[in-house]
């Protein structure tokens, strides 16, 4: 589901850029590749001044809220006591150093590995069962011609995205729970014991289904934007050449979507270790820790719940490091397939 969260705003831009590089974004002085490198940096600075000024506030926020807090990761190498000094920041200087002690604790903790296993299984399931659904939905919506029907269908599909997880879980409980609509109906017909919500074995499918219900509709936005950019000339030309509905989809629509799909896939893989948080926290008691613990809830329990900040920071740090590697690898893979990916050197 983080597919929708992280990737949407950035996703649209490269897609558009691929289709038609807009003049505004490409400096006129650099019509050919490589030419830009020959212009001295001072000239470039003057030329791009306005653009740089415009990005400064965003960079400032990024530094303030993303980069400076990164320094706090040093507590992963300490036995951090936030109350050791007058405030939590100076307490870092009063906490003893432990080296990699916290990391070896992590490696030796079977619960950490259980959380890793759950996370990976869920990621793979989401990749297979969730990722293709917004694409399919976008194709469906795109084939609807009447704008009114289309708008209504889209609105209905977006709606669950705005529900909180608490609400989603409650709705599922009322439908699929042991006292829910389905169980009650079955009960009336002589079958008893239906309870999907407390079944630890099916939990991974249940949470994937919840994610699909909540966020698949929202995920189609990016794909619809990409589809809107496909020139109708191409369809007409294909139709003239005798291409049927399926062939047009295969040879026109899907190739147009390919860069977006590759980009979202890269982002999703980079985010592989984040499969959700509230959703799992809310349902942990129903199915038990064994089935519901993922890395994010594990870190939360350790840090926020137990106050073991150093250990939680260590686990978070490892998770972050693996995430960076995954993004790099996926990006590389996208390049190998001839796609743009997230960035290029």
């Amino acid at each position: 589901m983080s597919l929708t969260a992280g990737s949407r705003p950035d996703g649209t831009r490269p897609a558009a850029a691929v289709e038609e590089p807009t003049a505004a974004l490409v400096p006129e002085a650099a019509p050919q590749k490589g030419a830009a490198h020959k212009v001295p940096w001072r000239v470039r600075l003057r030329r791009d001044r306005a653009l740089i000024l415009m990005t400064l506030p965003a960079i400032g926020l990024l530094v303030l809220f993303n980069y400076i807090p990164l320094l706090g990761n040093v507590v992963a190498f300490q036995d951090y006591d936030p109350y050791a000094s007058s405030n939590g920041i100076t307490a870092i200087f009063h906490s003893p150093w432990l080296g990699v002690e916290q990391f070896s604790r992590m490696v030796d903790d079977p619960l950490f590995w259980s959380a890793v296993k759950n996370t990976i299984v869920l990621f793979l399931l989401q990749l297979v069962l969730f990722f293709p659904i917004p694409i399919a939905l976008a194709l469906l919506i795109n084939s609807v011609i009447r704008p009114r029907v289309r708008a209504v269908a889209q609105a209905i599909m977006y709606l669950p995205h705005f529900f909180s997880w608490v609400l989603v879980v409650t709705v599922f409980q009322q439908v699929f729970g042991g006292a829910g609509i389905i169980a009650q109906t079955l009960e009336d017909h002589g079958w008893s014991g239906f309870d999907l919500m407390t079944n630890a074995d099916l939990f991974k499918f249940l949470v994937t289904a919840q994610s699909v219900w909540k966020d698949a509709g929202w995920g189609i936005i990016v794909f619809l934007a990409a589809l809107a950019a496909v020139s109708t000339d191409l369809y007409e030309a294909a139709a003239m050449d005798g291409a049927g509905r399926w062939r047009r989809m295969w040879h026109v629509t899907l190739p147009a979507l390919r860069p977006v799909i590759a980009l979202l896939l890269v982002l999703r893989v980079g985010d592989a270790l984040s499969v959700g948080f509230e959703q799992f926290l809310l349902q942990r008691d129903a199915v038990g820790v064994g089935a519901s613990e993922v890395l994010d809830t594990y870190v939360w329990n350790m840090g926020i719940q137990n106050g073991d900040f150093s250990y939680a920071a260590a686990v978070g740090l490892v998770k972050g490091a693996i995430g960076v590697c995954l993004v790099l690898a996926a990006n590389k893979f996208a390049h190998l397939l001839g796609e743009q990916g997230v960035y290029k050197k």
Partner: protein
Amino acid sequence: MTPNSPSASAPSRRSFLASTAVAAAAVAGGVPLLTACGGSENKDREGTTSGKAADKLLPTFVASKFADPDIASKNGSAAGYTGKVELSALAASVAKPLGSGAPFKVMSPFWGSPPKADCAYYTALDKAAGTKVTWQNQDGNTYGQKLGAVLASSSIPDMVVVPIWELVGKISNAVTAKFMDLGPYLAGDKVKKYPNLAAIPSDSWKMGIFGGALRGIPMPTASATFNIAYYRKDVFDKKGYKVPTSPDEFMSWAKEATSAKAKVYAVGDMSWTAFNVFGVRPSGTLGWHIGDDGKLTYRIEQPEYLEALEWTRKLFAAGVVHPDDKARSGDAGQRFTAGKILMYNMDMSHWYGKTAEQAKSNPDFKIEAMDIFGSDGGDPQLWASQPANIWSLIRKGASKETVENALAAANFAAAPYGTKERMLVDYGVEGTHYTVKDGVPVKNDQGNQEVVNAWVMLAAPAPYFAHPDYPDVARKQVEWEQRMGAFMKKTSTYGMNIVEPTRYANLSSQFEQLEIDFVRGNKKLSDVQQAISTWKSSGGDKLRDWYKKLIDKNGSGN
């Protein structure tokens, strides 16, 4: 009337992580290693203070009498007021406001949605107490997370309310480090400036000693405070059910009363009742006790601990627990009033709360408390609650004026029943927050919205029950506590505010989740047994030695 006793919000205090003990085991030598990190300062924060050392720190007790209770305290129960109060004849406990009007900030847990900062209730109370409080109300269900962060910041509010169940991890240590010694303001006769604080029982004050100094202003609790199994008296009468008096009877009643087809399940999650029935001690410091065999054990080492869990598990397995309770979804109290379950666990506050809530919409509704039975159907073995479980504390470095204003506010909140102050704290302003009908005050909508939490969290008088609109409920509450109190024993750690060394901070944090998982069939008995033996080897046995020394030094609390 303890507005929020710990059990009410216990679910929020969930110690999520099942791995801590295992993780601690992984450090193996981690205990000595972390000891080294404790530093000398931490040493002063650990342990407890009792006996003569404690007596020196305590305020002098001066009883205050404004209204004699109709039912006196017995067997550790609260006192009860069941008669009518002459509202026009209420006296003031303090002649003139004690506060100087200097502003100060209070952070306090709040269950529900807080009113506006300038609401009529806060304004009226400030005026009467001579204070100017800025309330920083925080969601009571996630209060611990907020508290941990606030204590680590450099801007701690002047006064902070800390419930005992949030003292997990390093927080109990932080309380000593961040809050001031109130001795110079309250010890001995100094307290007489604040007559209502002076009337708080010494046992409760003793619980306010952190790190060898009196820091916390207590909210006293009756020691005969136990979690209650409420049942629908009206449904029991209608269906002719007999209230169970043994675990077996309970099981057969539950099976009889459950009908999935009719959408009625017998019970919610009865874990807490099971612990009471089997005589399992509370978690936390009260869980330590020297048994008749002279051995010091923690609650999870009691054989009854596994028996209680096993019995609860059987209830779940029998399908008599509502599926939503199995999934821990929604509110059991609402299922109870809706008739979807006939029995559930909750603290004392729901007796009155549900009675008042249902009176209009559901006139047949009758709520009663089941008498706790023993595991063999005989008398139960119950364990006394600590004499105080919520404190308000004042930050180190607060000015003298701030401290005096904070104490003035606490003194106001601790006004005994039968005073003008009490009426104002509990009901607000007549005409604005409540109206009087036949001599009985009844809160209106504004009253229900504004007169919630906040002021009552600062301090409280000796425990009592009084519900002018439902005097019968107050009587039943006291009688139940007195009946149950007769079976009550105190653990060796009773009455002592004990701060465990931080290296054991997360040793037991896994058990709450483990209990939840085990009774629902998501963990095996062997998992629990394994966790207990890991607990022992990864610090439990060392913690035992620590407690042994502590009890040797301070004497047993029972």
